[in-house]
């Protein structure tokens, strides 16, 4: 277990900035998720911590020790790769045993630890198989077992669930969470899936174009996104974002008229989450437009309506039914929160 500190680290390939100069401290025992679209620098950041990528500038400290010039093998980390990175010519047992072998653990202890770890991830029956004979989920477990067979200072996980099917992903997610709870090892986890980030993280670092745009707890990031990018990225379906302006304490756009606590200004983007909107029958409701689409998700219906060029989505009751292209009204639920952003800078305007 250890704290990881990235101090003014930067990664450049020629003139291309992959990770912009910034600092980040990952607390001891924390589960930090680096979240962002592909090419945002999250994997590069993780690979720099692992020592697989050289850093252009700055310092990386693991448990207070500067590791810039240390090769990966001396950083005492374990990593799970997106494509698992298994050793195809070794059996499952040998795969799990390999890190112990490299560290000179004696054979009896090694066998015992392999058995214990395999049991933990339910692989004990497969120890004699080769990776090519396993399913995706099983391979994922082997990669995981290989990482947890010894207790490293940090776990690094690079989109470990992205090659699994949706159902297995949910199961493995819960297992990862449980494992972290059990082992308490500092974990850095890279993903582009906001749901994974929300469910797993103690803190999420949302990255964009090589820069961390917001670093906070999942709850806080969901409730108070720092800018338009985060607002649009977190949440499913994503937050409704409507362009308009504020005059005399009211935000106005085509079909929308709601009270906000902001001085007069143009170029404002109002954000409201679909789950904070209710369907109304009253034509004086603050959001009015034409019904565009209805999508039943099982426990609710996603109601999309249009007013001019903008569309707004609301999560309504599962039994809601209405005719497409008919007038439709929405009203914010009690306690619903409006998020206000500057359209040009994307920055949050209200606190």
């Amino acid at each position, binding site marked *: 277990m250890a704290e990881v500190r990235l101090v003014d680290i930067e990664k450049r390939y020629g003139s291309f900035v992959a990770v912009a100069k910034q600092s980040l401290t990952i607390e001891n025992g924390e589960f930090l998720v680096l979240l962002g679209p592909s090419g945002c620098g999250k994997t590069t950041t993780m690979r720099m911590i692992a020592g697989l990528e050289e850093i252009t500038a700055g310092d990386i400290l693991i448990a207070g020790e500067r590791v810039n010039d240390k090769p990966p093998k001396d950083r005492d980390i374990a990593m799970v790769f997106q494509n698992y990175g298994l050793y195809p*010519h070794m059996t499952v047992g040998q795969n799990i045993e390999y890190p112990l072998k490299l560290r000179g653990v004696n054979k009896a202890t090694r066998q015992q630890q392999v058995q214990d770890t395999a049991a933990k991830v339910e692989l004990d029956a497969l120890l004699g198989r080769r990776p090519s004979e396993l399913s995706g989920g099983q391979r994922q477990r082997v990669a995981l077992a290989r990482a947890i067979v010894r207790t490293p200072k940090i776990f690094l996980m690079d989109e470990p669930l992205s090659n699994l099917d949706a159902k297995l992903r949910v199961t493995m997610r819960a297992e990862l969470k449980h494992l972290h709870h059990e082992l308490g090892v500092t974990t850095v986890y890279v993903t582009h899936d906001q749901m994974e980030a929300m469910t797993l993280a103690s803190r999420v670092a949302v990255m964009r174009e090589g820069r961390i745009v917001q670093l906070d707890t999942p709850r806080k990031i969901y409730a108070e996104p720092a800018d338009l990018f985060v607002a649009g990225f977190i949440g499913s379906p994503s937050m409704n974002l409507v362009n308009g302006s504020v005059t005399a304490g009211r935000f106005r756009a085509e079909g929308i008229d709601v009270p906000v606590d902001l001085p007069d200004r143009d170029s404002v983007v109002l954000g409201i989450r679909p789950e904070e909107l209710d369907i109304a029958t009253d034509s004086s409701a603050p959001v009015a437009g034409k019904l565009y689409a209805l999508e039943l998700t099982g426990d609710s219906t996603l109601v999309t309506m249009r007013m001019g060029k903008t569309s707004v989505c609301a999560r309504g009751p599962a039994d809601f039914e209405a005719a497409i292209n008919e007038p439709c009204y929405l009203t914010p639920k009690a306690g619903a929160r409006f998020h206000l952003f500057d359209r040009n800078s994307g920055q949050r305007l209200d606190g």
Partner: protein
Amino acid sequence: MKKLLTWWGERALLVLISVVVLFPISWMFLTAFKQPRDAYSTSLNFTPTLDNFVTVFSDPWNLGSMVMNSVIVAVVTVAIAVPCASLAAYSFSRFRVRGRKFLFFLILSTQFIPAVVIVLPFFLMFRSLGLLDTRLALIIVNLAIVTPFVIWMIKGFIDAIPTDSEEAAMIDGASRLRVIKDIVLPMAAPGILTSSIFCFILTWNEFLFALILSRRDAVTLPVGLVSFRTERGDLWELMSAAGVMITVPIFIMALLIQKHFTRGMTAGAVK
């Protein structure tokens, strides 16, 4: 009807190609077991004999020492070229060094030069070093010929191995050399084996340099064949017997390794 014609047509074509390819080889095998008087006869009705093999291994032909020379030159060349080329290929494949592409081109460019152009400089060089007519000279020359080729070949195989497993091993605690030994070599084994065989065959069959650089002590099998062209004419039966001696080892090797080939090729990638 049309189908039947195509069927027969295909078979006929296959037989024709086989005949063209196999005829000289089978003729060589047959002649090797013929007596001198039957050598020019086209009849298949002859009394087979092993005399030719006995003759080529005894004075004045002494094929035994040529076999020895060929084996030593080929084995030592493979033994040096393949490990060196594997490491070089790994470096070219994995390290992003400045000038890497140029260096690789430079190595390949040695293959563009026709052997005839450099055989004379080699001759002069080895003469001044006192290495003419030695196996060492042939090994050095063959190394120069095959190493670039083998580097290029093995690099292709290593390029195809995903880096994930290597990085995983480095994080698991392996040094770069350990990674090569434990992960890369086993995964690239089929490719390295293939390259080794190519390397062996190239060296085994090398003729021009062996002809110019050897006289008596270091003569290899292909050069030895020429000695059967004598003032008494071409001794076809002896030449064929020696030809069989050159061909058979390669045949056996190919057969032995064939199994490994296909298995190794398919066992590789895991995603």
